[in-house]
């Protein structure tokens, strides 16, 4: 991974559902932390860590939820009694949560806040890098556009002002990077290409800084070897169930590796040196030790 990626302040990790966004975001975070950057990995599902929690030395984690992002915003931004009134008003909460895009804007506001050297959260330390474990691509691209949309709709007032500030940060390529995660399967690759196009259009075009091809299957057998295995399978009589299923496993893996090769080719044609590949890990679960292995591959 080029050291340049880690010199950003905000990295958005997005991609199709289930391709490994969370895994890659954490691996990137570990790699950045290992390179000495105080890093936080934040998602906006609001179902994980409610407080900034240290996961590994120099690596923190937070799950942003719109409700507390809003409370925090009101506390800091709105003077005295008005804030009090709004925070206590269930009507306002319902209004804010139901207004299209407002949840997203509030979350973006919090992510932006995390990436400021001067944190507005009382007593909070600054981070060198915020890695966002963003929602899946469609929603991920939409959320990147939310601040700009709000700035355009609201035009005046504190929300518009805040949205303008965030939008400016997002379109600053020195500050913000967008990273797409994909697997070498047809739909995820399609979605990655669509994401690239969606980001490139609109008033604040963005470019994918890197594309990470995650969970790439090993290509263990040559075509000749696969045919040899297939021939052996054909020779093995049916009762030898163990032998037959062993050979089938190898052939299934080979078939998948071949299919993946074609899809990986599409990504590499589109992204060239910006494409990085992480291997499929044959492990019972992906936890810190496995994440460290992936981080090692991503280290600057």
């Amino acid at each position, binding site marked *: 991974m080029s050291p340049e990626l880690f010199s950003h302040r905000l990295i958005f990790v997005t991609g199709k559902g289930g*391709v490994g966004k969370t895994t890659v975001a954490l691996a990137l975070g570990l790699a950045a932390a290992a390179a000495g950057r105080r890093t936080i990995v934040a998602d906006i599902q609001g179902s994980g860590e409610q407080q900034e929690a240290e996961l590994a030395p120099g690596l923190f984690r937070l799950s942003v939820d719109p409700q507390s992002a809003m409370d925090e915003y009101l506390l800091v931004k709105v003077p005295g009694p008005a804030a009090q009134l709004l925070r206590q008003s269930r009507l306002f909460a319902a209004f804010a949560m139901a207004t299209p895009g407002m949840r997203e804007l509030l979350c973006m506001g919090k992510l932006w806040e995390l990436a400021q050297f001067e944190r507005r959260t009382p007593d909070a330390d600054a981070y060198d890098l915020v890695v966002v474990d963003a929602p899946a691509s469609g929603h991920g691209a939409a959320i990147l556009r939310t601040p700009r949309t709000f700035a355009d709709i609201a035009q005046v007032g504190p929300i518009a002002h805040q949205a303008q500030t965030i939008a400016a940060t997002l379109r600053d390529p020195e500050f913000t990077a967008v990273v797409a995660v994909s697997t070498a399967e047809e739909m995820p690759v399609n979605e990655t290409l669509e994401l690239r196009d969606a980001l490139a259009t609109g008033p604040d075009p963005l470019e994918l800084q890197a594309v990470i091809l995650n969970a790439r299957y090993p290509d263990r057998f040559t075509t000749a070897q696969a045919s040899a295995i297939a021939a052996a399978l054909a020779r093995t009589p049916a009762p030898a169930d163990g032998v037959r299923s062993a050979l089938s496993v190898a052939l299934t893996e080979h078939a998948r590796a071949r299919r993946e090769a074609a899809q990986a080719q599409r990504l590499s044609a589109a992204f060239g040196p910006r494409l990085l590949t992480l291997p499929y890990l044959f492990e019972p679960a992906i936890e810190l030790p496995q994440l460290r292995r992936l981080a090692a591959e991503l280290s600057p």
Partner: protein
Amino acid sequence: MSAAGLLEGRRICICVGAGGVGKTTTAAAIGIGMAKRGKRVAVVTIDPARRLANALGLEQLDNEPVRISAAALERLTAPDEPPLSGELWAMMLDPKQTFDELIDRLSPSPQRAAEIKRNGVYQQLSSAVAGSQEFTAIEKLYELAEADFDLLVLDTPPAHSAAEFLNAPGRLSAFLGGGALQVLLRPAGLGMRLLGVGAAPLLKALRLVTGVDLLSDLTAFFGLLGGMTEEFNARALRVQDLLRSDQTAFLLVTSAQDRPIEEAVWFRQTLRERGMPFAGAVVNRVNAPVPRGEVPLDLPTGPAFPPDLAARLDACLADHAVLAQRDATNIERLRTAFAGEPILLVPELAVDIHDAEGLLAIHRELFDE
């Protein structure tokens, strides 16, 4: 248990699950299987892979179910099988179109409908906003429930977790129902008095925070909706009834990895709590057990087959044994938690799932054929 048993007596099957687990594939395979059993089935797919759509004979987003052609059906039946005795219909949901049609249907006049569709808030709502796919999928389901199908199979949009599908439409209908906002906008409204808050300062504070124009945009939007908000609310309630009905079956599609399995247990609990009918789970892409130590070594030798081939085979088996063991452990956990509720297992298949042959293969697994 096969999928047919699981759907006995149900008119609606909703395939939910996290992103990429196989919801669309499962929905299509269930449609095929039930049509083979003589049912008149409609499958509502969401963003299917192009080739999967083609395998079903679907060419484009098409907001009404179309009957699958005989030619396409022939590809969906094995050579030794009789032709389908039921009917298979399918469509690819177009969320924007569905939303527009809903507005057309509920608007007092075509002019009003056109005005609503031009409104900026509506345009956001019907396309950009998270949850519009979920909302329109349910809307479509509600609509088709009136039609003359024995079974509706609903695919659901990619989501982070299965529960998204339960929450997202509600958020949108709540907004369209406009409860909170309408009270706010009627300054001397009863709601305000009930809350014991003076409307003026609250509105002022709200302006301060949101900016005037946003508020007036919303005011304009709800002004246009007028009495339709009540209809949205009433509809939302009827949809809830439909989802809770015992003719409905939520079918959870999951992988056998550990977090998805934990989520599956949690999701079933959530459905219970909400009084929604859980039918069972499909654990997809299960890795078959791998026998170790029985690898035959009678592979050809010679320059094309280096001696390390056996070693490579063994490494391959060792790796897959880990996955098989992982899956077996997780499925066992699921069985314990489900205490007898149906669990269907579909193996990781070598064939390309996106063509007719792949769909047939999945269908055979689901229907125990």
